[in-house]
């Protein structure tokens, strides 16, 4: 009996996997789940799903679950994960691709409502904060 088990990304959610790989320019299956990205992530404490888990979910094409996490919006692209990944995967680029997918899919799922902040809260913010937040969190 043939007991060979082959794992590849050509099944579930494969169009999603291909899309994330294209936008991010990364090969998702290069990840072997060592967890170093999550160990060093300064934002991991505030995430519902850890960076290495985001990569695993992306490998498996779990589009809906992944795009519903708060973690993809918590990442601030500090690139600590990228600089420490032993496989040279740019995890932050993958997470950026996930945000772009959520923001560009027609729903325009914005994660910052700048006008809901009080005028006082807005007025103290330096432009560098407001501009970068809007670039990352809004469509």
């Amino acid at each position, binding site marked *: 009996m043939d007991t060979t088990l082959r794992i590849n990304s050509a099944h579930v959610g494969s169009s999603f996997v291909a899309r994330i790989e*294209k*936008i*991010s*320019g990364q090969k998702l299956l290069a990840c072997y789940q060592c967890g170093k990205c999550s160990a060093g992530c*300064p*934002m991991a*404490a*505030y995430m519902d799903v850890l960076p290495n888990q985001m990569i695993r979910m992306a490998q498996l094409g779990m589009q809906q679950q992944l795009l519903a996490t708060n973690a993809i919006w*918590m990442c*601030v*692209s*500090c*690139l*600590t994960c*990228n*600089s420490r990944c032993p496989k040279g995967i*740019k995890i*932050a*680029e993958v997470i*950026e*691709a996930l945000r*772009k997918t959520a923001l560009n899919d027609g729903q325009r799922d914005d994660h*910052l*409502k*700048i006008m809901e*902040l009080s005028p006082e809260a807005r007025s*103290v*913010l*330096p*432009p*560098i*904060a*407001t*501009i*970068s*937040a809007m*670039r*990352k*969190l809004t469509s």
Partner: protein
Amino acid sequence: MGNENKPMKLAYYPGCTLKNQATNFDVSTVSSMAKLDVEVEELDRWNCCGTVHALDSDNVMNRVAPITNMIRVKEAQARMEGMASEFMTSCAMCYNTLKRANIEVKQRADVLATINDLLYLDEIKYEGDVEVLHLLEYLRDRVGFDSLAKKVTKPLEGLRVACYYGCLLVRPKEVAFDDVENPMVMENLIRALGATPVDFSHKTECCGAYQTVDKPEIIADRTDRIMGSANEELADLVVVSCPLCAFNLDFRQDDAKRLNPDFHNMPVLYFTQLMALAFDCDDAALRFDLHHIDPLPVLKARGLG
């Protein structure tokens, strides 16, 4: 310094925040460079650096703003004698965004050609022939910390300084001009100014960046950890090179104190303000009035206020 008699000319890109909340970073940069006999010339018609390098693999539109600034540098070079094909910025965010866009167009002729097409109104075309320098890099490699130390008229003796790099000066490694995990360029500058740099475990730990806009509670926790680690090393103050880090670490200290009653307030300065102080520039070059936590008490305690 190459020629002691002739001042060096250097194109300067301030960026938006240095012309708004972080005026103290702007004036201390310009004033301290004057003391080093470097003639700083602010670029004409500079525009947004791009504020955050977009990480998707095919995003030409986000490179247009940074590359437009390269053309402004070439215009300044064509207009002014003695101006090199390079420019300096002291803002870590501007440095990172401008440098990354520059690296990308140098490597990808197709992206560069598209951007030049989009910028058809500019007579000068960009050919990847401008270099982006961070001020710390310029001070280390062009001025030299030994020469810089000779200009110090008010040594910052006894002042204990924690040097905070954050993300943008060291990541990704293509833009880092020092070790990615344990940079020392700021410590070496601080030493040249007569102060004492302390060990700082959190010097490249992210401050939480733009989450400050609507999640100040997260920044409070980051600030508590980062400033707390500086406090453990008995630092008097923290120096930074990024106006976003400065805002988070300084202005979110009240939130940090609410989160952790043992939080110890500590001033956050730009490294250029310590230069201006050591070069004995006047108060207008320091603008300590723009800080949330007043730096004067700790400076006075060290006989420097």
